[in-house]
């Protein structure tokens, strides 16, 4: 076990993947010499050389489309989009090819590739550096979309993603990169993709979230327990595609009440899908309307306005109390 932040944990997973499988290559803008703008790839080019950790020209479609070609040839490319807000430059490659090659070729070719991208607000960054658009990828069949929430699961999920034979969008909550440390096992550890975790058990209300929002959610759960004596169950999705319906609906069947929290815009977001699944499977258990505490259907504000904008502990506890009082 070693205490580390998420950046180090991701670095550890990349290091392990590079060491265990010589087909793994990393590529992206400024990931080599510069070690990544967030230093996630620190030390890796030095250790594995320029043919395993590759600095690319500035072109996201080429990074993604090039990864497709590499994966077809049998490599396992792990690419980095410098920010998720610039991944749309290669979105056509994701929709038209990354997500389709296995199905299109009836299983003849699979694409063992991972596209890492830092997402989300809260780091006082300029425009296009703060959005959350996981729903685009979750709505695209043929991908896995994984979103860790802490150093330990970040490492385990990234390693699992690299080992997975299918393409994974690995959406990294950059607000958590250096937010806190956790004990991370020394031996390579993985977690299954598509399995949500009940990170706190409770009986009165379920709060469902993922990524950077897990922090205010857990604070809210504490606050509700301490102040209101309410027993909150908290579900960390960890993957929004696949979405772990059983864990979600099972929890709500128990508590009868739910609040969903994410930073991304509300319309057609993950929250909508979670509600739909609850209604489809657990409507009879539902004792109150489900509330969504999410980003609004507006552009993520520039950073002077972001603190006010982001879902906060207060907003979550308030919604929870509303739902509990229904």
């Amino acid at each position: 076990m070693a205490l580390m932040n998420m950046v180090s944990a991701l670095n550890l997973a990349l290091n392990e993947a590079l060491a265990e499988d010589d087909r793994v290559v990393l590529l992206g803008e400024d990931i080599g010499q510069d070690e990544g703008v967030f230093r996630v790839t620190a030390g890796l080019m030095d250790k594995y050389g320029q043919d395993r950790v590759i600095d690319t020209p500035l072109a996201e479609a080429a990074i993604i489309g090039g990864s497709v070609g590499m994966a077809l040839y049998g490599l396992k490319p792990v690419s980095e989009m410098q920010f998720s807000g610039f991944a749309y430059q290669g979105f056509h490659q994701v929709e038209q090819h990354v997500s389709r090659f296995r199905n299109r070729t009836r299983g003849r070719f699979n694409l063992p590739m991972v596209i890492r991208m830092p997402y989300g607000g809260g780091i006082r960054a300029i425009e296009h550096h703060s959005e959350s658009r996981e729903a685009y990828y979750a709505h695209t069949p043929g991908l896995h979309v994984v979103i860790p929430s802490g150093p330990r699961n970040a490492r385990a999920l990234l390693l699992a993603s690299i080992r997975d034979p299918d393409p994974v969008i690995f959406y990294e909550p950059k607000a958590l990169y250096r937010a806190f440390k956790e004990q991370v096992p020394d031996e390579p550890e993985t977690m299954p993709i598509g399995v949500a975790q009940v990170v706190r058990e409770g009986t009165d209300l379920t709060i469902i979230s993922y990524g950077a929002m897990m922090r205010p959610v857990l604070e809210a759960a504490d606050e509700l327990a301490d102040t209101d004596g309410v027993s909150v169950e908290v579900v960390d999705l960890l993957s929004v595609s696949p979405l772990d319906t059983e864990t979600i609906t099972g929890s709500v069947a128990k508590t009868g009440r739910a609040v969903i929290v994410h930073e991304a815009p509300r319309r057609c977001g993950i929250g909508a899908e979670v509600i739909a699944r609850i209604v489809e499977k657990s409507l009879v258990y539902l004792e109150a309307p489900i509330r969504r505490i999410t980003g609004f259907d507006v552009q993520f504000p520039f950073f002077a306005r972001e603190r006010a904008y982001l879902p906060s502990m207060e907003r979550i506890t308030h919604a929870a109390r509303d739902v509990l009082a229904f």
Partner: protein
Amino acid sequence: MSVGLPWQAKPLDRIGRAFAVPRKAIKIKPKVEWLSILAGDGKVDESLDPKLDADRSIYLYRLMLMARRLDERCIILQRQGRIGTYGPCRGQEAAHCASTIVMDREDWVVPTYREPGSFYHRGWPLETVLQFWGGFEEGCRPPEGVHDTPIAVPIATQALHAMGLAWAMKLRGDRHAVLCYCGDGSTSEGDFHEALNFAGVYRLPVVFFVQNNQWAISLPRAKQTASETIAQKALAYGFDGLQLDGNDPLAVYVGTTEAVERAKSGGGPTLIEAVTYRMSVHTTADDPTKYRSKEEVETWEKLDPIPRYQKYLLGRGILDPKRIEEIEADVLAELAAAVVRYEENQNADPLDCFKYLYAEPSAELEQQRKEFQTALEREGMIEKQEPRMAQQRS
């Protein structure tokens, strides 16, 4: 000193002098050349003729003929509703066949949708071409041992895959190469640019083979780009461009061989512009009389690669009328058999769309698959596959 726009306050006294002054011209190192061996009028540049032996010459002739007859057959099948919309390659047989045959088995060929001869040559069963246009994913499944990519529909996107394949070859130290087809229209897309730029930066073993067939649906080549040739676009990426007569199988073969050799010997990528012509419709859904003249088509018909090559081979004594007949009959018979195989294997299970999406289907997908299966059974679209009781209605 006040803020504002004092500069613009008075009209600009443009420094006309600057227009006339001499500057240092910059010399561009990579070169752009033109290659033609078997001219449109049948004249051969003997000094360049690769003089392929009889077997290979006939192989290439037959391959081009197969592409032509397959094309014709597909248009008929489309009219009969036995396949869907079809995009013919008529006129482009030399361009794609004489280049594909340069590639070794371990090389990769990355096609677009106008290279049926390439699939055939590389070992895809003929009926896969029919399957693709017939609406079956099976047409995108390369047989074991063949590792070319399937038809790529979104224009220019495959150029990045070709680049990535070549990148992987280079990283692995494999002395293979990639041949990537695309159209004149594709050169306008961002992906084309990014592919060539990366290929140049990493000096990748890839040949970008642009079939400039003069049209991108209704847009003529001249309106696609102001660049006089497509070949010269290579200069933007620091490597050579070669423009060649795409209806001349000898030029295509020689030009591609040279580029592939260069790629394999570490010399980096080449951009080949094969000047050819789409003699037929864009697809069977297209009406080219709306945008191009009969005269233009007729001019190009005179440059048809198949009669041109036939005449050349007759001249060299490699073909004779009897042999031509035999090859024709042989091609048609093989084709007919493929059509039969295509039509005898049309039981497309709709549930297959769940089967190949991931290595492991997730619980939610499995749930959806069951929902779909139940519906299909109920609607009589598939036979009941398992006892109903066990299944939960979602």
